[in-house]
């Protein structure tokens, strides 16, 4: 926070703002401006407290109780958390999203970085068109993206079976237990790679082109310019995207929830932690346990992201 305000002397008689309650007319400008700062933040602060702090606190509170058939709701301490972290359904979901994040995010980053570098280097009309078209899926809600891919994957509606008919084979079903990992990865990559590409691209466009000239004079070729100059200079964008992707993947919900119905049972009610919490809450009305699951997931994500940001803090990001 280097930009400290350089205000020292200012005629105070000109200030007659209404928020100065008047009981202390000689309040220093700094004091008054402190109050004003809080006033600007207050509307958001209220929303923050009511819709973030309160639900989190309430989730924690609810998670410490259990509802028994005979006993009614009783305080059970950390029992729900012990249950969650020994519940194979929850752990299975957590394990899935972690594996998914570890494979998906590098692939997605590689695709979007490669696209951004190519689009930054090529300035043709087709490249401009391509940039827009690749970004387009971002404007499509995840629900509809998942529905579309569900149709494309479907043996009845999709083109896969027709393609395989040409060779007389049977098309693989991308949502079968063996393929669902890749099937979902494809949907998510399709949905988000364009958005990430645009963020990296915007950062690339912000680099001073004279750097490239200097590098070329020093004898660097296009690859060296790309990987020694461009990539390091957009590393903060890459960190930002990684954080987004990590948070998004660990709370994976929409795509598997939509594809559940057409997956012939591959995607169950415990496929991801969020789907499991949702089913516990709305199929079994088990809100205490669902709150514990939500809170546990929140903690897991928070810690994962924090560790990641801490590990990359030298690159300059949130925590620096």
């Amino acid at each position, binding site marked *: 926070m280097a930009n400290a305000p350089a205000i020292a002397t200012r005629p105070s008689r000109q*200030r007659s703002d209404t928020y100065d309650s008047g009981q202390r007319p000689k309040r220093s400008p700094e004091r008054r401006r*402190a109050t004003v700062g809080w006033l600007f933040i207050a509307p958001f602060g209220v*929303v923050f407290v009511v819709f973030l702090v309160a639900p989190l606190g309430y989730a924690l509170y609810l998670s410490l109780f259990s509802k028994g058939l005979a006993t009614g709701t009783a305080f059970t301490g950390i029992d729900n958390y012990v249950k969650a972290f020994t519940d194979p359904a929850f752990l299975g979901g957590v394990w899935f999203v972690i594996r998914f994040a570890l494979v998906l995010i590098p692939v997605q980053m590689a695709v979007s970085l490669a696209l951004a570098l190519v689009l930054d280097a090529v300035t043709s009309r087709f490249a401009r068109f391509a940039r827009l078209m690749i970004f387009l899926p971002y404007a499509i809600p995840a629900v509809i993206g998942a529905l579309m891919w569900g149709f494309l994957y479907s043996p009845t509606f999709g083109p896969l079976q027709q393609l395989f008919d040409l060779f007389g084979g049977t098309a693989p079903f991308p949502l079968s237990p063996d393929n669902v990992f890749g099937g979902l990865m494809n949907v998510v990559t399709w949905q988000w790679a364009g958005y990430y590409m645009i963020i990296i691209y915007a950062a690339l466009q912000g680099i001073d082109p004279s750097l490239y000239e200097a590098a070329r004079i020093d004898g660097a070729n296009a690859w060296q310019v790309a990987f020694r100059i461009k990539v390091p200079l957009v590393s903060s964008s890459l960190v930002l995207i990684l954080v987004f992707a990590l948070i998004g993947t660990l709370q994976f919900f929409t795509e598997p929830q939509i594809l559940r119905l057409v997956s012939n049972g591959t995607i169950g009610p415990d496929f991801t932690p969020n789907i499991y919490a949702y089913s516990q809450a709305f199929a079994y009305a088990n809100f205490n346990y669902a709150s514990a699951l939500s809170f546990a997931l929140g903690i897991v*994500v928070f810690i994962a992201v924090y560790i990641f940001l801490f590990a990359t803090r030298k690159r300059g990001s949130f925590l620096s």
Partner: protein
Amino acid sequence: MTTARISIPTASSTRSARSRKRPGRLLVPHLFLGALVLYFLVPIWWLVVASTKNVGGLFHGSAGALWFDKTFAFGPNLVDLFTYNDGIYLHWLGNSVFYAVVGGVGATVLSILAGYGFAKFRFRGRRFAFALLLGSVMVPLTALVIPTFVLFTQLNLTDTIWAVILPSLLNPFGVYLMQVYTADAVPDELLDAARVDGAGEFRTFLQVAFPLLRPAFITVLLLSIVGSWNNFFLPLAMLSNTNLFPITVGLGLWEGQASANNGGGHSLWGLIIIGSLISVIPLVIAFLSLQKYWQGGLSIGSLK
């Protein structure tokens, strides 16, 4: 967050010098781009084609999944979509627009005020509040849905429009973006000059700072609107009255009914397809026509 350097690229002013490459060297990048454009467009192409087919064409079309059938049924499908179940689709579309605009505008206004407050004022507790804000960016918002639902049940707020709109006012990342942008784009000297001239703090913000913040404002607005428009988990949990559904939850409902063969003899799959197509059109048009606004703004979040 010492040196937040924001660079809004100004199109391709300085880079035309680099386009004088030999065309042969550009073939490989263009093939790469072409292949990926194809990949990104195939599902959309499929959606367009499928929306012109009747039920028979969808299931046993003559030309395959990626080409038009003999009968062109786009018109009848459209009529079907807007009349099915007393035109509930139009209702859903209207709800989506309403939630997205009210939630998006609200979240953006809160973000710009808070971002300005964090960037341009020094006060006790500011560092702590900002650290809290950054921490909250890392909280997965879906983890809040179930607790918020239980909270709203006690306030009798579930199954109302407020259950969807109020939680979507929370956009910590928007505040962060506005803080970063404001710190860089609004010089303190300018604000001081306005204050010396006797402008009140709010007037200073509105008339001096806000015009400078417009690019970031539009970016945050677009991001918030898209966020609300795409939201699925929150309205799915909060709403049970189908008349209040946004389009995402409505299409999800149809999908459930269709896969349970519950459409009462009506082919809901066809409705889902054309309903998906119609619902993506507004946002696609918005993005294509507003591209000069959002493209620069998206680089705000990344710091040097």
